[in-house]
């Protein structure tokens, strides 16, 4: 079990997204949360889970979950399938060009279930 981003607040709700085997190894899936979309990534090689907004800030496309993950100097990142802008999976910061940062969420895995931590103000 891994858990990133210790900053998750007390008030965070853990939302049960799916099961571990639903997520492509070393890839992503898109999770529906109310009217929002969250990209969930299983970086199997590093045994790490990440979640970010699904929308790419570049052209506002709901696509990050379909992108390719990888690292840049050890920093885990996601490349958008549209124009390959890359974003840090840890901080959400744009690593190529000046797109604004993407939102990231904490993830935890318990009993084969994957949970995404949603802060109260995170998703409207």
């Amino acid at each position, binding site marked *: 079990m891994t858990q990133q981003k210790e900053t998750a607040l007390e008030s965070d709700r853990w939302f049960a*997204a*799916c099961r571990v085997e*639903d*997520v*492509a*190894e*070393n*890839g992503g*899936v*898109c*999770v*529906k949360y109310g*009217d929002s*979309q969250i990209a*969930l990534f299983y*970086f199997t*090689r*590093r045994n790490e889970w990440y979640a970010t907004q699904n929308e790419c800030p570049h*052209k*506002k*496309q*709901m*696509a990050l979950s*379909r*992108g*390719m*993950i*990888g*690292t*840049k*100097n*050890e920093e*885990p*990142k996601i*490349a958008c*399938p*549209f124009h*390959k802008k*890359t974003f840090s999976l840890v901080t959400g910061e744009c690593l190529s*060009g*000046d*797109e604004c940062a993407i939102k990231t969420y904490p993830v935890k895995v318990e009993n084969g279930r994957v949970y995404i931590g949603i802060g109260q103000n995170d998703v409207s």
Partner: protein
Amino acid sequence: MRIIVVGNGMVGYKFCEKLVAKKIPGIQISVFGEEQYPAYDRVHLSSFFEGKDITGLELASPSWYRENGIDLHLGDPVQAINRSAKLVHTFKGFVKHYDILVMATGSSAFVPRIEGVEKEGVFLYRTIEDLYLIQSYAAKVKTGTVIGGGLLGLEAAKALIDLGISNPHVIEFAPRLMPRQLDEVASEMLLTTLTGLGLTIHTNTNTSGILGKNQITGLQFADGSSLQTDMLIISAGIRPRGELAVECGLETGMNGGVVVNNFMQTTDPSIYAIGECALYNEMIYGLVAPGYEMAEVLVTHLYNMMVKPPLPAREFTGFDMSTRLKLVGTDVASFGDPFADGENVRNIVLKDSVKGIYKRINVSADGKYLLGGILIGDATQYNLLLQTCKNKILLPPHPEDVILPAREGKKEEGAGVTTLPDDALICSCEGVSKLSICQSVTDKGCETVDAIKKCTKAGTGCGGCLPMVKDLMVYTMKQQGKYIRNVLCEHFDYSRQELLDLVKLHELKTYDAVLNQLGKGDGCEVCKPAVSSIIASLWNEMILKKGNDTSQDSNDRFLANIQKGGTYSVVPRIPGGEITPEKLITIGKVAQKYGLYTKITGGQRIDMFGAHLGDLPFIWSELIVAGFESGHAYGKALRTVKSCVGSTWCRFGLQDSVSYAIRVEERYRGLRAPHKIKSAVSGCIRECAEAQSKDFGIIATEKGWNLYVCGNGGSKPQHALLLAADIDSETCIKYIDRFLMFYIRTADPLTRTATWLNKMEGGIDYLRNVVVNDSLGMAAQWEVEMQSLVDAYQCEWKAAIENPEIRKRFSHFVNAPDEKDPTVQFEPLRDQKKVANWK
């Protein structure tokens, strides 16, 4: 000794940078700048509208000034100079003494006297502040106009397009665009291209007034006509900012430039002027490169005043005003004397009105020297021509060759980087010579373009010289006997070719296995598709097999091209473009059922657009039942083999081109390569299938086929070259097998066959030797390997829909598999639909 710099623009900053680098003891530097921001890259100002934020344009951070002991005052313009007491008075009330005063006040936009220029909605285009104002105003309005059809005006018009004003107007007083750089034909050509980009250009038009009450609503022209517009940018030229100089009695020119001598000294020996405010020899230099040269001249001059032994003296003697514009959508360059004409000049002109290309070179009457020229539509030769012109390099025996595209089999005839003299100026922005670039490679061990940029500063200005810098680097390294490694990315220390050999040797079949054994780290979006393509080229296994699925490029991963909005296109294979009525009906029905937009492609098949991810497996199930297969429109793989109708129907046809195209397409379908591969078969030399624009193209002859290779459409079109003539069908296939295997094994990632050949030493002759004469002794092996790839072919869509694990990935939401992405939106278009524009 206190040096005060007035103006913190591009040249003022460059002066500081050059001055501190000289480490002259005992000087103190103060800088007063009128703008709120530390000096920024004005040349690339417009990239602000493409999303670059202003810190990205900054030339140096405020801490740089601190660290170098420069005392920087921003937002505090100098308001008066007291020459007798050597004092400056600033807006914020500082009074400061100088020993040396440097004016680098640049210029401001020239505002012609038009009634109403003060109205709301009228802007200039010079500073970041201007851009902020333009940006917020443009958000509220629909139409926009620019006065001025020069370099800057056209750039401003482009910026309006970027801001969402779809059809800006450009008003030019003169009869043509960019009258200072271009001749009439060139302007005409440019006008056509820009009109195509969405600009409406009015030449010969004199604006007499600006309409509207407080806000602009339109323009009034002298001929009585008018134009409605919500906003206006005035870009009618520049005026040097010499107001301070005028006031303190320095000699200035008619329009305000500060008169300077060869050392940038004004009529007061303690005051100097550099950059766009300096008037040298009755000339204002409105470009950044001459400004940087002035800064260098002045720094050397000051150094020699204060330090012994002195540096070799440096004088300003004028500057070449050649430019290459960064107009989006077309190339424009002019160099040397673009207008040279008359008895002692030979003008050589190449014009292609369809492609929008115009090239004019002016050559000395004896044909030996290049005097200047103009390039529109294609300025790839700009750097070399500029060097040839400036360095008075002898032209080849047929000077027209330097502007003609390289001919069949021959390398470019013009002067290559190797023939340039050592002191040829490669980077004119930073004044870096060929010698210093070569030395950075030999003496300082720079082996990447980035390292050279850091070390010499070459290419850090407009960036136009970077291709030459790279060529010089490669050339110098080769001369030193260094092998130039073209490694994939930070995760693999190998070139694609090396990696392919290793993957083959170790029989690696998954991306992870390759990364574990040959790479390091966790991979990225560069090496994943490249390695996946190698694995596919070697083994031709189903690309979505577990473990390889997520290392595919997005289009390969979902076996379809992703489109605006996140839907996909569906392109079934239609070999040779031949299709039965039944299949046409199936396509029609499927498209109807799933609500897809249909279009005949440029590749002789039918594309269905707008498919939801979750619908793809269902669509394909229906297509496959009807006998269709994947068309690999998404893959770096064989695309189409186009055909013309050929001898079965056509009165000129020499061979059955359709049957042969189908045979070729079915042989190589699914074959994965470093880039996509396309082919065509024509039934005779009328060439209706356009085979000579393909990676390999086949044209029927009386006796058999002519095989052409390495053609390309796309952005840099290139005709294919004849590889073998009058060969029979079997030989032709054999040669294609060898040719493709050679390409797959040796090309860099994402390199089409044309580019691959262009980089091949020995060119087409070498390639012919390898393929036809088997000079490498590989032919037999390649033929066997190709046959095994052909035998391993399976339709990957069929495999995908039959495999539940793979099929599961084709849904948008993991936790709501039946729901479609609700953000996807369509709008009606003619009798079909289109995807909504991106925001």
